[in-house]
């Protein structure tokens, strides 16, 4: 019965009107999305390209794997920890950097690979070694694994040592506190006590805390910034500079514009359908079904717009969405912001046409037609 009524109703739509109703919200939605992105792209000083370095992003996620979710990832923050680079350390010819007696930070992973594989290691191997994430990835080791260290300078004739990978490191720059540069110890295994003593603070990352993290200016990890970095630094800058007010204004303006167009389309659609629906009701159509069917195309249309907004958010603004990490409320927020007025428009539209199909209104409409 319903599908037949839908067929009947569909014949009431003029193709041009249908096209207008369909394209209006979608076009407006797309324009709002593009505007939003242009704004971001203009404001944010992006190094590299926006869509670059997806592999790097995935690597980060892989290192997050032990905790399975980003929000649940435990990270120990090592502040004021010097980061040495090749050439800036003890011996310019030596790539592996020794910091302290037993902590190994490797910035030149290619050298590390050759050093380890070639049994050419400088320093004093301790009970554990910390590797930066990409080095660990290149060596295909994870915390708890053992790597073979050929010998140390103090004991050149000694046999190779097996050293346990105690943890993974992630260089970071803190935007919020004077651009400190240091190391994040991503706890993926049991840190030895000596490493824990170097840790000055500990926190569990949340969505908001992540906004202060970036790989910026750390060539050992990546020469370009990931989309996450862009998002993080963008929102970090916005939050610290108050620029979020401008962004909020743009978003609100776009939403208001879209809402106005959506409501106008709905009103036009309902006005166009009014007479036909009233007549169908007079002939025996059920008002509630007819009202529902009249509003259904708009509901589907808005659902499409919401889905599109969701996809845009997911693909461009929140790349984590692709991996469905545990921040659904935050990630869904833009879609919810769009869905809410859509729901209001559809609900008000339904109420409106339901009123139009009430007894008195039908009689007035048909009576008016009858002169």
């Amino acid at each position, binding site marked *: *019965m319903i599908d*037949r*009524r839908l*067929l*009947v109703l569909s*014949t*009431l739509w*003029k193709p041009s009107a249908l096209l207008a109703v369909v394209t209006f919200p979608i076009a407006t939605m797309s324009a709002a999305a593009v505007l939003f992105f242009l704004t971001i792209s203009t404001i944010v000083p992006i190094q590299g390209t926006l869509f670059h370095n997806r592999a790097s992003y995935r690597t980060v996620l892989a290192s997050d794997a032990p905790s399975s979710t980003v929000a649940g990832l435990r990270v120990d923050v090592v502040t004021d920890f010097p980061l040495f680079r090749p050439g800036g350390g003890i011996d310019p010819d030596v790539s592996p950097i020794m910091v302290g007696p037993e902590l190994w930070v490797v910035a030149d992973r290619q050298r590390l690979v050759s050093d380890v594989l070639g049994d050419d290691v400088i320093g004093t191997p301790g009970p554990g070694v910390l590797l930066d994430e990409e080095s660990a990835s290149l060596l295909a080791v994870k915390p708890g694994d053992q790597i073979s260290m050929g010998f140390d300078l103090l004991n050149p004739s000694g046999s190779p040592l097996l050293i346990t990978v105690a943890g993974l490191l992630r260089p970071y720059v803190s935007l919020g506190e004077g651009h400190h540069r240091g190391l994040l110890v991503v706890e993926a295994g049991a840190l030895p006590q000596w490493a824990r003593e170097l840790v000055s603070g500990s926190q569990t990352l949340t969505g908001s805390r992540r906004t202060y993290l970036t790989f910026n200016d750390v060539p050992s990890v990546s020469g370009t910034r990931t989309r996450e970095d862009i998002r993080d630094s963008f929102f970090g800058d916005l939050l610290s500079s108050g620029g979020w007010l401008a962004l909020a204004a743009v978003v609100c303006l776009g939403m208001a514009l879209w809402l106005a167009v959506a409501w106008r389309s709905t009103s036009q659609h309902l006005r166009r359908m009014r007479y*036909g629906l009233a*007549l*169908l*009701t*007079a*002939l*025996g*159509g*059920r*008002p*509630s079904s007819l009202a529902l069917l009249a509003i259904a195309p708009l509901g589907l249309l808005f659902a499409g717009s919401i889905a599109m907004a969701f996809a845009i958010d997911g693909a461009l603004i929140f790349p984590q969405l692709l991996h469905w990490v545990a921040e659904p409320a935050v990630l869904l927020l833009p879609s919810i912001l769009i869905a809410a007025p859509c729901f209001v428009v559809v609900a008000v539209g339904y109420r409106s046409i339901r009123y139009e199909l009430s*007894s*008195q209104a*039908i*009689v007035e409409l*048909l*009576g008016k*037609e*009858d*002169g």
Partner: protein
Amino acid sequence: METLIAGSKGAHVSAQNLQLRFPAKRRMVEVLRGVSFEIAEGDRVALSGSSGAGKSSLLYCIGGMLLPSSGGVVVDGRLVASLDERARAEFRLRRIGMVFQSFQLLPALSALANVALPMRLAGVSRKEAKTRAEGLLDAVGLADRAQHKPHELSGGEQQRVAVARAVANDPGLILADEPTGNLDDDSAELVLDLLLAPANKRTILVATHDPRVARRLGRVVHLAKGRTTEEDLAGIGERQT
């Protein structure tokens, strides 16, 4: 083909102390003030009265589109006002055929689709509805205009399409609101011939202020100041003249 227009059984209609009031500009307008009448199965009744007397409102009350303020209409033993919205819609769909003064055809649909519309609403298959609609259009002499849109038809032709649509679901009661009001004399005669064909056994209630139309119906109920009085045909003719 006339059998398509003809109905096998008419409805019995009874109005009991029907009252209808509308709120308008801070006051209540009393449209119907205790209307009572009875129409037997297959009767043909003219509902006369001047413009604004409440003829259309009475028709809409009988058809279940307007709910009376008090009193009620009983059609085939069912009190229309007691039906819920869904049942009233079903009642209109199956038991009532409406003919309007301005034809009220959907402009986007062809004559054929307009006639098929009530059948489609009733769940009749597209094919069956089309076949039956073609038969009905043939019965009203418009077989060759089936694919024409309403604006491509004359007023008389449009009203004949409307008549065909009104009987599409084989209702027991035809409610016609000034069906000839917008037609010339010849077209009006043609439409009345269709509605009042001897083979048509349906109950027919025609709201009209045209004495010529009233004369063609067997009985006249006059509506004035919200109340009805039975009148003979001669009386109607005299008042109109």
